[in-house]
């Protein structure tokens, strides 16, 4: 049974390469909403997440909302175990599949099929699993013969199709999604949507970051409102959206 437990977790980034201290303090507070503090070595630290305690359980479909820089992506990366908490404890049970940023890791010189293999391997599929699913992935992309052409010949929409289809082929317990809807043409969006819904239904826990209220109300049964790296509200989706909009 999948489970995520955060116990007073904080994530603080050191920020290097900033010279003017007074300006950067000001700027960071404006731009990130995060709290900017200095550590002992006089490095500027951005507290992207501050003392967060949460528990997600089987069946939770959590919509992540908040302004730019409120910590949504950081939280997703934390849950994807890419970031490790700088304070507090994080416990995760279950196989995670992050769909955070689809494009990096695409080799444009390689063909679509080759990219399917590489990305599949990186995301933990075995060669056999990839072979079994290759047709299904190819079908979902709807790219047909283009799959045997180098990815550099693709349009950006076609690249998104490919990337999405590969990521969606993994059957995770915990699915983390960061704003990936809305690419491709109408036909693909519909296909992707159906695939997404089936993925969402198969996953034990879903955490979805988005700015679209529609998606939240449609897919999620809980919402988490972040503000300046802290939990502002966690619970009912409608209430969360209301607080979010009233405040803004």
């Amino acid at each position, binding site marked *: 049974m999948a489970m995520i*437990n955060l*116990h007073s977790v904080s994530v603080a*980034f*050191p920020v*290097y390469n900033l010279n003017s201290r007074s300006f950067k303090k000001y700027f960071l507070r404006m731009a990130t909403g995060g709290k900017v503090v200095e550590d002992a070595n006089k490095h500027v630290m951005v507290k992207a997440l501050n003392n967060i305690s949460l528990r997600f359980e089987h069946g939770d479909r959590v919509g992540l909302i908040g302004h730019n820089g409120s910590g949504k992506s950081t939280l997703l*990366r934390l849950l*994807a*175990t*890419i*970031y*490790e*908490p700088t304070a507090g*404890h*994080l*416990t*995760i*049970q*279950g*196989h*995670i*599949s*992050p769909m*955070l*940023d689809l494009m*990096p*890791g695409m*080799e444009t*010189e*390689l063909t679509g099929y080759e990219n399917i293999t*590489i990305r599949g*391997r*990186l*995301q*933990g599929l075995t060669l056999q699993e990839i072979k079994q699913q290759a047709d299904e992935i190819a079908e979902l992309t709807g790219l047909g013969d283009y799959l045997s052409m180098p990815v550099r010949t693709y349009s950006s929409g076609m690249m998104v199709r490919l990337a999405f289809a590969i990521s969606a082929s993994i059957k995770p*317990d*915990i699915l983390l999604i960061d704003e990936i809807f809305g690419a491709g043409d109408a036909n693909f969006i519909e296909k992707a949507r159906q695939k997404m819904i089936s993925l969402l239904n198969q996953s034990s826990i879903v955490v979805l970051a988005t700015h679209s209220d529609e998606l939240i109300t449609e897919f999620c049964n809980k919402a988490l409102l972040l503000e300046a790296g802290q939990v502002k509200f966690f619970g009912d989706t409608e209430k969360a959206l209301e607080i979010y909009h009233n405040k803004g």
Partner: protein
Amino acid sequence: MNIESVATDLASPLINDSVVLKQPSHYQLALKDLMSGLKKWTIWLMLAYQDVKLRYRRSILGPFWITISMAITVYSMGYLYGHLFHSNLQTYFPFLVAGMLGWSLISSQFSDLTEALTQSESLIKQIKLPYSLYIHRVAMRNVIIFFHNIIVIIPILAIYHEVAKVNFYSLMLIPGLLLIYINSISYGLVLGMLGARYRDIVQIVKSLIQVAFFLTPIMWNPILLPEKDRFIILFNPFYSFVELIRAPLLGSKPEWSIFAMVTVVTVLGIFLCMRMFSKYRARIVYWL
């Protein structure tokens, strides 16, 4: 991605109210990273192979350009410097070619590994994989390139067969490569971390390698060095590591002092790597 293991990895004591399980130490987490990096060998082997293939994707000769450019370099260098130093081509040519093969492997490991983590930034920030995997990827890539390069020794073995022989000592190439690989991983992790944290390191390493090339007997024979200046090679780890490749390629018996130096460097590297990797592993992603 096997998250069951990551779960224990990351962390953490199951905080069920008051029950706090023992948390794995930084040392254990670092060791786990190294182990799972090794276990995922199929992935880094694939990536390394891909890297080599990609570089020559649209060229007709493909990766054999590596061999060709190496051949042009060493043969022309051998000819030119052989005459410049008035040395006997019979001995100088094989010495230089074998030395250059060793040097090209070691120097490319040094400079590429410093960039190993920064260049994989987009992957590191997207998919959780052991950090050591990215080091293996680069180290393996250079080993693959080395095996392309090594072909240039074949004509030398044929033409100068009195000096460069294939014999029992040629087999020493295997442990030699293995030792270089182990050091590539341990020092590679350290350099990779330094390169990620301080972006100047890459430039520093690159210029140090230039200097090391001239200080190490590759173009010049160590015999030419007066007795009192021998310390230049005696305390030069590059010399010992180049010799790990050069001696077997020429079929000559490696000196024991080489292995003493290599052992010291290897042990030091593993110690340094474990210290630094344990301490800073969790910070790496924030540096990128």
